[in-house]
């Protein structure tokens, strides 16, 4: 692999729902080990963009290329559906805002983490359980809960379990949609700490969609600011947040400061 070639390359991506343009003409590159934050208020097209990037929504226009381990940069929508589904449960991870969408709520924590391993052929119960335990520890969960179903967990714990479930196959790229949304502030802080640690330790590449600039500052190397489906500003996180150029970004930043 060429050290200079990006992990993900997006070119002129647009998506419309009927006549409504949800996101328009987005282009960027993401390199290995980089964390990109996509910020903007709700309705700005962030989640649509994330769905298009993560092979879950065919964009109306544009190309999304990913550096597949065996064939280099490839248009992900040229892959067959099973290839895309395989990618999604091996080399990629998707952490949903609502854990209900990302977890099997009536399957035990261990089963939730082990599912990806079994999907790629793991057939040793002891080893699967061992790996699940390792990951539950990594996300700071009580091992005594390994056989409990997440429907009985707190929101923060569900989110940690979702992260473990995604990272267990050591994905290279993780998509996160408001990973701390809907959590109490103190729970958010712990989760952010955990995420920051994991991203560094595992040298993860990630795209994080959030409306929360504090989350963006803590996790992202670079930021992309979206408004009405368009990217209005990009740059290094500190640069964008400390010296915003676009009036919308300025408004976003100032509104946070006022809080």
């Amino acid at each position, binding site marked *: 692999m060429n050290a200079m070639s990006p992990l993900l390359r997006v070119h002129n991506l647009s998506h419309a729902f009927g006549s409504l343009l949800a996101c328009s003409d987005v282009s960027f590159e993401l390199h290995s080990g980089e964390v990109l934050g996509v910020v903007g208020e709700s309705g700005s097209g962030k989640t649509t963009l994330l769905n298009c990037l993560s092979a879950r929504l065919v964009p109306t226009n544009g190309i999304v290329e990913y550096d597949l381990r065996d064939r280099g940069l490839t248009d992900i929508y040229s892959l067959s559906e099973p290839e895309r589904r395989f990618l999604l449960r091996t080399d990629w991870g998707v952490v949903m805002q609502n854990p209900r969408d990302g977890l099997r709520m009536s399957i035990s924590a261990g089963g939730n983490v082990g599912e990806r391993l079994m999907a*790629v052929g793991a057939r040793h119960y002891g080893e699967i359980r061992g790996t699940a335990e390792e990951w539950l520890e990594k996300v700071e969960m009580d091992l005594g809960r390994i056989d409990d179903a997440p429907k009985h967990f707190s929101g923060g714990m569900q989110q940690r379990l979702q992260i473990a479930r995604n990272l267990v196959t050591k994905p290279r790229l993780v998509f996160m949609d408001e990973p701390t949304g809907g959590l109490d502030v103190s729970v958010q802080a712990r989760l952010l700490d955990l995420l920051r640690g994991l991203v560094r330790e595992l040298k993860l590449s990630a795209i994080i969609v959030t409306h929360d600039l504090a989350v963006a500052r803590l996790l992202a190397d670079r930021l992309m600011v979206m408004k009405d489906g368009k990217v209005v500003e990009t740059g290094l996180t500190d640069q964008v947040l400390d010296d915003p150029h676009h009036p919308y970004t300025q408004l976003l930043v100032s509104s946070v400061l006022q809080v």
Partner: protein
Amino acid sequence: MTGTQTAAVAETAAPAAAETTEDGYNFAYLDEQTKRMIRRCILKAVAVPGYQVPFGGREMPLPYGWGTGGMQVTASIIGANDTLKVIDQGADDTTNAVNIRRFFARTADVETTETTGEASIIQTRHRVPEDPMTEDQILVLQVPQPEPLRSLEPREIECRKMHAYKEYGLMQVSLYEDIARFGEIATSYSYPVMVNDRYLMSPTPIPKFDNPKLDSYPALQLYGAGREKRIYAIPPYTKVKSLDFDDHPFQVQQWEENCALCGAEDTFLDEVILDDRGGKMYVCSDSHYCARRRAEGHSGKLSGSAAAAYAAAVGADQPEKGA
């Protein structure tokens, strides 16, 4: 179309004559066109072992869930020279087995038998015979629910994708959950199998005791689901593996007792309640197998006369009674 069929159709306007139409039905009830359609589906099923082939199932004169799929398969492959055996729960004399046997004796006028070795076709519900079958025989299984993934994924469209893409991780998760919760895989029947390393398949509600028989079985196995309109097959000598974990290998049921009638040690046993104070005994579920062993002089712990009285009461005393 045969002449008698025309007669049956012509009689639609004269309901008083309805009882005479019984003789107007085609050989083995289904019309030849339908049988051809079903045979084509069977061929496809044999070519892709374990794959569920959708077929235009017909309404049979027996209720859905009572073996209409198996009956349609049997009706499509049976010829005048065939000898048919029908079992339910392993026994030839259970009401449903009797009823289906009666149906084919009446509509196809074929020989019927209770002897496993004499049958060219055996239609069964919930059991695989204890006696080995041969390449010259066909085993037809009645299937209530063909989709092994149904309990995990209710959507048909999604299930078909999971099969097409061989995405069976979720099935393995359900076994993982069993071990995590119970210490063992808590599935005792309809135990899922991988056929020819490709398709996940439900072996129908046979007890898992019978699963090992399916592997490299000399006889052709045909599975018919009438209500769900699916046919699938396992050709002779095909690899059939019951799902498990390396450190929790698949195991079959075992009994501490032997058959009280014939003394067999290695058969699937039914529990027979003897009184309301917990008294019970175990007898072979395969009634023909048990009767044959007794005819050969084997006996179990029940004394000779008691065994004979019991066998007479349940009609399992005539190993050679045939059609």
